C-alpha cells in the first residue's frame, strides 16, 4: 500500500497556514447534520469533542471510565511545552521544532512537528482562558521550568498536576457542550469494533460496561483518541484501564499500525517492590531539575546512602553527559540506569534502582522552595515507599511510560481508512523514536483544539454521506465478531486468571522487547507470545456473564488484543536493524554504548498491515525526508 502523508511542501513556516487555507469548510447550517464519533476523552479526545461541539457538529463521545474527567491524561504531572520564550532564553517555534525532531532521533515527520511547535503557543493562551491555574510568579506572569532534552525553560506547569488541570479545562469545555446538547456523553462504554462500509469508517460497536449491552453507533467520521498501549507490558505508569483495544480492532479493520516498537521507558519511577505489584508510579521528570542521580562507585556497596562519602558516589549522568547532565533525554537516562544496575551498582533491596538525591537542592533553595515545586510528588513517594525524600534520597528505576508508535496518520491525522481519524498518543505522528518530556500534553491538545477541527471539516465537505441501517451486512458482521469474542472468553472455562496471563506477557516483553533488544531475543519472545496467546483462549477463566458489570470480562478482551500487539512489537523491533530513541538494539551501538542509528536504510516509518491473526503482518514504509533539521548523531555530551 502506498502511504500518502499529504504533508505540505514549500517553506515550513508557512505550510500549516497554506494547508489550512486549502482545506474545505462545512457551512454552519450543515454542521449540525453531521454526527461525529469521538472515542476518548483525554486531552486529545476531550478537547476535540469540545471544539467540534462548539462548531456545531453532533458529537457522540465515549470513554470507559465513569466520567470523562478520569481519562489517563489526568495523571500527567510535570508540565506542557510551549515556545513562548517568555523568559527570553532563546526559545522559539523553530527551536522547539528542532528539539522535538532531534529528541525523536530523526524518525518523525518534519511538517507535523513544525505545526505542533507553532500551535503550542495558542494552547497556553486557550488553557489560561479556560481557567487552568498555571503556576505564576509574584509579578502575576506565568512561570516556567526546564525539562529533559531542552536547554531552555519552556515548560508550563500547575504544581505537579499539570495534566489534571489541563484535562479538567478540556473536561469543563466538554461538559459545557454536553449541557448545551451538542455533545452526547457515553461513559462506561467501551468501543469494541470499528464499522467500515465501502472502505470508509462509518461507526463503531460498543459494549456498555454497566450491563453488557452491545450497541451500534453510526457517524460520518470516527475519531479515536484512546491513548497509548504501554499496558501491554502489564507493569507501566499507565492507568490500569489504558488499553490498545480501540486502535487494535481498527488495525484489524485495515488501519495501518506505525512503529509499534517505539516505546518509551521513563527513567524516574518508583522501583518494583513485589510480584503483587499492579502498576508503577512515575515521579515526574521535572524532579531531575533539582535532584542529582547517583549510585555507589563500588559494586555491591550496601551502605546507607548517607554514609557513602561524596567521593565514593558516581553521579554517572553528570559524568557522561557534562552539558545536559541530569537532564538528558529519557531513553538515555533510562539506559544509563540499566547499565549501572547491570554492573551490580544498583541500590535498594532488589538492586534495581538508583538514587535521586535532593540534599544539595535542599541546602541551596531550602525546604520551602522544594516543597512548593515538588511537594505533592514527595508526599506521593513517601506514601508509597514509607521513606521521606526530604531526609533520604529517592530510589528510582526506569519503567514503561509512553508509546510513540500508534495508528499511522497523514498530515490531516486521518488513518489509512478514510473517515477514521486518530489523535493524541493513539497515533504515531509527532515524536519519532522518542518523546521529549512535556510534549505529549502539547500534542494531545494541539491535535484536539487546533488541528482536527480543520482537517475533519475538509473530509466531511469532500465526502457523500449515505445513511445505513443496522442490518447492513458490514454492521451485522462487526456486531457478531464482538459477540463472538465475548462468547469465546466466557466459554473458555479454563483455570488461569486474566491477570496471570497479562503478567506473563509483560515479563516476556520487558525482558526481550524492553529497554534493550537483540535479534535472537526478539525471535524468542515472538514465539513465546504466540504460544501464550493460544494457551490463553483455551485456559483463561472469565467468570460471570456478559449482561452484567463484569470487570474480568473487560480485562480479558483487552489482554487478548495485547497478545497480538506484543507479537507485532517484536516483529517491528526485529526488522529495525538500528538503534534509535527508545528502540535500542544491542547489535547496533557505538563503542561507548550510545545508540547507533542507520539513516541510510531505516529513515522511514514502519507501517504494518494486518494479514490475519498469527499470520505475519505486511510492512509498508513511509520514507522520511529532512529538509530543515539534518540528521546527526544525537549528542547530549
Amino acid at each position, binding site marked *: 500500500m502506498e502511504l500518502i502523508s499529504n504533508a505540505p511542501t514549500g517553506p515550513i513556516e508557512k505550510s500549516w497556514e497554506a494547508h489550512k487555507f486549502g482545506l474545505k469548510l462545512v457551512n454552519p447550517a450543515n454542521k449540525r447534520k453531521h454526527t461525529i464519533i469521538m472515542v476518548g476523552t483525554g486531552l486529545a479526545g476531550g478537547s476535540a469533542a469540545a*471544539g467540534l461541539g462548539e462548531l456545531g457538529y453532533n458529537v457522540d463521545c465515549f470513554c470507559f471510565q465513569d466520567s470523562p474527567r478520569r481519562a489517563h491524561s489526568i495523571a500527567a504531572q510535570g508540565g506542557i511545552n510551549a515556545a513562548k520564550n517568555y523568559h527570553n532564553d532563546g526559545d522559539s517555534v523553530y527551536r522547539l521544532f528542532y528539539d522535538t525532531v532531534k529528541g525523536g532521533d530523526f524518525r518523525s515527520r518534519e511538517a507535523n512537528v513544525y505545526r505542533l511547535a507553532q500551535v503550542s503557543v495558542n494552547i497556553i493562551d486557550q488553557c489560561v482562558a*479556560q481557567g487552568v491555574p498555571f503556576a505564576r510568579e509574584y509579578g502575576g506572569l506565568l512561570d516556567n521550568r526546564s525539562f529533559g532534552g531542552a536547554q531552555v525553560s519552556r515548560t508550563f506547569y500547575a504544581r505537579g498536576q499539570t495534566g489534571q*488541570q489541563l484535562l479538567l479545562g478540556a473536561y469543563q469545555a466538554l*461538559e459545557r457542550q454536553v449541557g448545551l446538547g451538542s455533545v452526547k456523553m457515553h461513559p462506561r462504554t467501551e468501543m469494541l469494533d470499528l464499522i467500515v462500509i465501502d472502505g470508509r469508517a462509518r461507526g463503531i460497536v460498543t459494549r456498555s460496561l454497566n450491563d453488557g449491552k452491545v450497541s451500534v453507533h453510526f457517524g460520518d467520521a470516527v475519531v479515536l483518541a484512546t491513548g497509548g498501549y504501554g499496558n501491554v507490558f502489564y507493569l507501566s505508569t499507565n*492507568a490500569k484501564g489504558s488499553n490498545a483495544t480501540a486502535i487494535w480492532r481498527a488495525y484489524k479493520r485495515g488501519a495501518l499500525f506505525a512503529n509499534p516498537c517505539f516505546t518509551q521507558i521513563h527513567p524516574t519511577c518508583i522501583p518494583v517492590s513485589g510480584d503483587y505489584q499492579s502498576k508503577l508510579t512515575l515521579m515526574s521528570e521535572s524532579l531531575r531539575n533539582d535532584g542529582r542521580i547517583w549510585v555507589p562507585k563500588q559494586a555491591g556497596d550496601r551502605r546507607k546512602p548517607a554514609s557513602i562519602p561524596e567521593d565514593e558516589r558516581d553521579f554517572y549522568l553528570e559524568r557522561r553527559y557534562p552539558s545536559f547532565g541530569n537532564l538528558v533525554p529519557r531513553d538515555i537516562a533510562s539506559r544509563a540506569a540499566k547499565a549501572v544496575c547491570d554492573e551490580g551498582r544498583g541500590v535498594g533491596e532488589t538492586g534495581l534502582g538508583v538514587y535521586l538525591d535532593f540534599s544539595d537542592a535542599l541546602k541551596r533553595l531550602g525546604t520551602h522552595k522544594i516543597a512548593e515545586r515538588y511537594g505533592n510528588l514527595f508526599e506521593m513517594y513517601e506514601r508509597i515507599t514509607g521513606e521521606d525524600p526530604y531526609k533520604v534520597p529517592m530510589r528510582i528505576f526506569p519503567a514503561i511510560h509512553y508509546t510513540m508508535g500508534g495508528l499511522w496518520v497523514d498530515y490531516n491525522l486521518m488513518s489509512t481508512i478514510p473517515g477514521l481519524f486518530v489523535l493524541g498518543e493513539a497515533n504515531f505522528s509527532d515524536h519519532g523514536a522518542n518523546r521529549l518530556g512535556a510534549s505529549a500534553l502539547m500534542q494531545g491538545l494541539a491535535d484536539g483544539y487546533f488541528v482536527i477541527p480543520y482537517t475533519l471539516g475538509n473530509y466531511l465537505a469532500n465526502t457523500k454521506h449515505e445513511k445505513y441501517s443496522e442490518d447492513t451486512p458490514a454492521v451485522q458482521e462487526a456486531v457478531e465478531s464482538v459477540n463472538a469474542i465475548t462468547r469465546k472468553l466466557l466459554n473458555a472455562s479454563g483455570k488461569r*486468571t486474566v491477570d496471570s496471563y497479562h503478567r506473563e506477557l509483560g515479563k516476556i516483553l520487558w525482558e526481550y522487547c524492553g529497554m534493550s533488544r537483540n535479534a535472537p531475543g526478539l525471535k524468542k519472545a515472538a514465539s513465546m507470545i504466540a504460544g501464550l496467546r493460544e494457551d490463553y483462549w483455551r485456559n483463561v477463566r472469565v*467468570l460471570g456473564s456478559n449482561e452484567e458489570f463484569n470487570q474480568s470480562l473487560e480485562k480479558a478482551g483487552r489482554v487478548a488484543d495485547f497478545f497480538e500487539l506484543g507479537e507485532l512489537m517484536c516483529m517491528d523491533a526485529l526488522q529495525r536493524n538500528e538503534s534509535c530513541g527508545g528502540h535500542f538494539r544491542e547489535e547496533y551501538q557505538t563503542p561507548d554504548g550510545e545508540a547507533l542509528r542507520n539513516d541510510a536504510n531505516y529513515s522511514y516509518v514502519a507501517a504494518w498491515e494486518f494479514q490475519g491473526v498469527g499470520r505475519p503482518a505486511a510492512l509498508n514504509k513511509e520514507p522520511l525526508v529532512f529538509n530543515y533539521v539534518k540528521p546527526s548523531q544525537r549528542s547530549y555530551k
Partner: protein
Amino acid sequence: MKLTLHVWRQKNEQDRGRLVRYEVPGVNEHMSFLEMLDVLNEGLIEKGEDPIAFDHDCREGICGMCGFMINGMAHGGFKGTTVCQLHMRHFKDGDELYLEPWRAAAFPVVKDLVVNRSSFDRIIAAGGFISVPTGSPPDGNAIPIRKQDADLAMDAAACIGCGACVAACPNAAAALFVSAKISHLAHLPQGQAERDRRALAMVRQMNREGFANCTNIGECEAACPKQIKLEVIAQANADYIKAAFTERPEAVSGGVG
C-alpha cells in the same frame, strides 16, 4: 499479616446487598490496599467465586476513580490519601475491616463497591466552566494574576471528583465538591464574567441531583484526599447569596436583523 474483611456485595442497583466475610492471609506491608484486593480476587476467581468489583484506574491518587469506605472512613481515613495510595503498612495482623460503597441517593450502587457518580458531571455541565470557545484568546500573560490567587485557585482545583466528601458527610451533602469548583474559578479573573450564573446554576443542579445541605460539620474536609478546605464552602455560599439577591431576569429582547 492476615486480615478479615467484611465486604459489601450487591449484584446490581436493584439487589438489596449484604456484607460477606473474607479471610485474606499473607498480606504484604508494601502492597497498596487495592493490590491486596487484587490478590483476594485472584483467589476468588480460582475458587470460581465472583470477584469483588471496585472502581480504580490511575492508582496514583489523581483520577478520582477509586474509593470506598473502610471501617466507616472514606478512603480509609488517612490524611490526603486515596484508597489506591493507601498502603498495607498502616494495618496490622488480625485487623477486621468493613468495606462499604459510598452511600448517597445521588450515587446509586452499580455493583459491590462501585457507584455511579454521573451526578457530579451534570453539576459541572450546569455551570462548572468558563465559556471560552476554542480559538485565539488573549495571550496567557495579558492578564497578570496575583500569585496568591493563582495558588488559591489551584488549591481548590486539585479536587479529583472522587465523592469521598459526599460519602463522609453525615448529610450526604456535596458542598465540598461543588464549592471547590466555584471557588477555583471565582479566584481567577477569567472566571468573573460567569461568576454569578455559575454559583446559581451549580447549586441548583446540586439540589436537583438530590444532594442534601451542608451544616458545616466538616467531615468532608477530613476525608478529602486532596485536602480541599472548608473555606471553599463559605466562599461558594457567599457567591450564591450575592448572586441570588442580585439576579435579574434574562434580557428577552432579541437583536434585530
